[in-house]
């Protein structure tokens, strides 16, 4: 299923910040993590990640450093700053609200499922 561009754009910031919260990472790895954790549903135009990283860095949410692993080529790693953590919390809350509202309004099955469970008890 294709996820709309708007949705991908809107979720880009929290996704990146969330990944960097766990550990420092670099562009290629971030893309791979997103692919993997969305079961290949969220596919980015990979090049577009970098301007976004740039912007997050400009805003002071993340910062970068170059590092050369023992084998392989130099990578530009990004890490989450305190301001970025706060930003992530804000995004989290917003998505929770969106998710809760959506759940209530459009996932009709939800009520049935819960009722079904109730009956089993």
């Amino acid at each position, binding site marked *: 299923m294709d996820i709309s561009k708007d949705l991908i*754009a809107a979720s880009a910031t929290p996704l990146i910040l969330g990944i960097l919260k766990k550990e420092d990472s670099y562009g290629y790895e971030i893309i791979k993590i997103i692919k993997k954790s969305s079961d290949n549903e969220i596919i980015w*135009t990979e*090049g577009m990640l*970098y301007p976004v990283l*740039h*912007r997050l860095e400009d805003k002071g949410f993340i910062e970068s450093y170059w590092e050369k692993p023992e084998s392989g*080529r*130099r990578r*530009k790693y990004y890490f989450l700053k305190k301001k970025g953590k706060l930003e992530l919390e804000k995004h989290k809350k917003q998505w929770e609200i969106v998710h809760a509202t959506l759940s209530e309004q459009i996932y009709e099955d939800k009520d049935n499922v819960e009722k079904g469970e109730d009956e089993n008890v």
Partner: protein
Amino acid sequence: MFDLELKINSWSDYLRSSGKLDEEDILELENHLREQIDELTAKGLSKEEAFLISVKRLGNINKISDEYSKVNTEDLWKQLIADPVDPAVSKKDRKNILIIIIFALLAGTAAKLPTFFGINIDNSIKYFKNLSFYLIPFITLYFIIKNKINKKLIVYITGIFAITALVINLYPSYKPNHTAILTGIHLPIMLWLVTGIAYIGEKWKTKEGRMDFLRFTGECFIYGSLIMFGFFVLMMFTSLIFQSIAIDIESFMENYFIFYGPSAAAMITVYLVETKKSIVENFAPVLAKIFSPLFLITMLIFIGTVIFTGNSPYLERNFLIGFDLMLVLVLGMVIYTISARKMYDKKGIFDYLNGILIFVAIIVDGIALSAIIFRLTEFGISPNKLAALGENVLLLVNLAGLLWLYINYFREKIEFSIIETWQTKYLTVYAFWMAIVIFIFPIIFNFE
């Protein structure tokens, strides 16, 4: 035979040719491409297949480089995501507005205070000399608070203000008060440059910081003029409607408006330009682009008129003042156009226009300089003439440097940033010259 390195290099060269990415950005993208290719070839794909797939996944290079240029102007995300109203930000904003209102009132009161001691502001030379101290310290203080300037810089800035205030008020002034008037004219410029330190903060020596301050100055000038014009219209309108009910509010205007009006206009301008930067940013460069050709035409007509009518600017003093004001304005616009230029812009028509503007300004400056030297030799040395000579030489050096660098830039010998470096470094020269006129001229000319 498929040459992978060659392909990757031509890919990154293409990226480079857009001029919107720096080397670090390119290396980062190139590394991404290489990782992807490595992974795919490890899975058994041929190098060629792996390269094609990886390039495809990275996406259209033109679009990516466009994105980069948008990131740098912050346009992209304004379109994509409207910034939410952040309660923390709006609280801070309210605090700043409060400071602005208080400072505007304080500055107005400071300007009015001397009248309580019976000083006639129209012909008090001391009042004129101190004019900048009624307003500029408040602007500086606003930036010190807003930018949380560190202690060391605060000491420097307040030190300069305090020493200057002390010295100029200890200096006596004897008729015809030429040096005192020069002090009054040069002081605001020097203090404004010092305010720049508070505006920029710790990075006040860097090119980027100073360029930002120049842009800020240009925008303050444009928007300050607009706001003052608005105040003026309001004032006219107010006295008009009060006249219609036969109440004369002239004395109110004289006693209050002339003090509080300009201080309020200045503080509001500073606040607006600084806080609403992104909105202002879109508008001011357009103004610069409209006016730079107009200034060019005016100057050309002016030079033409001087040549054809034979009206020599050598004798008439006002002529010279007009010349110099025009030069300052033109230089200001040239610098503003440079500062409003986006880092990743390519050479465009307005760069050439700026180059021509500088060239014509040099001719005008040459005429002005020869006039001053003529007057100096004909009528002898006076503080005004010496100050004018110094300023015109400074302007000439500034303009000549700019022209030289512009030519090299057009010939693709240097990066545009060299021009910015030259201009920002040169600011220090102006600050020192202002200080010389303020502190040393009165001594040389026996405080006359």
